[in-house]
């Protein structure tokens, strides 16, 4: 049902929100020794979620977490590069906004159809 109305946008919104948490964790741990920055491969996670929805299988598992490969390894084993995380966070926030406006558009369309305006 959900899938029919919102298309890929429902799953995309959820994944975007999840990725926002992961990126915020990276920013929070920018000074923790030995912390390994993580990220979600958004395209792969969305594909996995959609194919499991199509197959009607059980609820999809958590998106796979990948470790970021640092441009330059640091002495304390921390792999967070603040600039990169900030850019990724901004990009993710923008994409979240875009997905949200798609969902809102869908909701508006259906509401108008229901009201028969």
């Amino acid at each position, binding site marked *: 049902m959900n899938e029919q109305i919102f298309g890929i946008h429902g799953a995309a*919104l959820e994944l975007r929100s*999840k990725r*926002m*948490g*992961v*990126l*915020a*964790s990276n*920013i*929070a*741990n*920018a*000074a*923790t*020794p*030995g*912390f390994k920055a993580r990220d979600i491969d958004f395209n792969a996670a969305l594909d996995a979620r959609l194919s499991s929805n199509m197959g009607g299988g059980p609820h999809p598992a*958590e998106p796979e*977490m990948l470790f970021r490969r640092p441009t330059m390894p640091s002495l304390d084993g921390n792999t967070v590069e*603040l600039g990169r995380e*900030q850019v990724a*966070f*901004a990009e993710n*926030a923008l994409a*979240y*906004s875009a997905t*949200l406006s798609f*969902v*809102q558009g869908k*909701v508006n369309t259906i509401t108008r159809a229901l009201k028969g305006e």
Partner: protein
Amino acid sequence: MSDRSPMTLFSMTQRAMSAQMVRMNAATSNLANAGSVSSSEADAYRPIRAVFATELDRASGLSGVRSDGLVQSQSAPTKRYDPDHPLADETGHIWEAAVDESAEMVEIMESARQYQNMVQALQTAKQLMLETLRSNS
């Protein structure tokens, strides 16, 4: 973790900000004690540093920060010969705290930058959450 409720973006940011505050307070204490003098090596002030540790919340997949305590620097206090100093020992030596002022300033600047980053990220996330909440009007 003090409370067992799952970590949210807000509680995670709050923990990270508290950790940065501990770090900044430690650096400020070091700066305040720069140049403090004592009459024996054992009594001399030694710079302190906050140690951070990750705390992973498996339920939400978020990882926050916690300050895992403070460690004292092993750098030895500077021994100086100053027999006129009121705190000088019987051989006329005093011990000065080994505080590197520039290193502490850099530490404070870095901490402030990371604090700002956290605030910025929280603001963006909060705005998006509000937009999502208000979308059913």
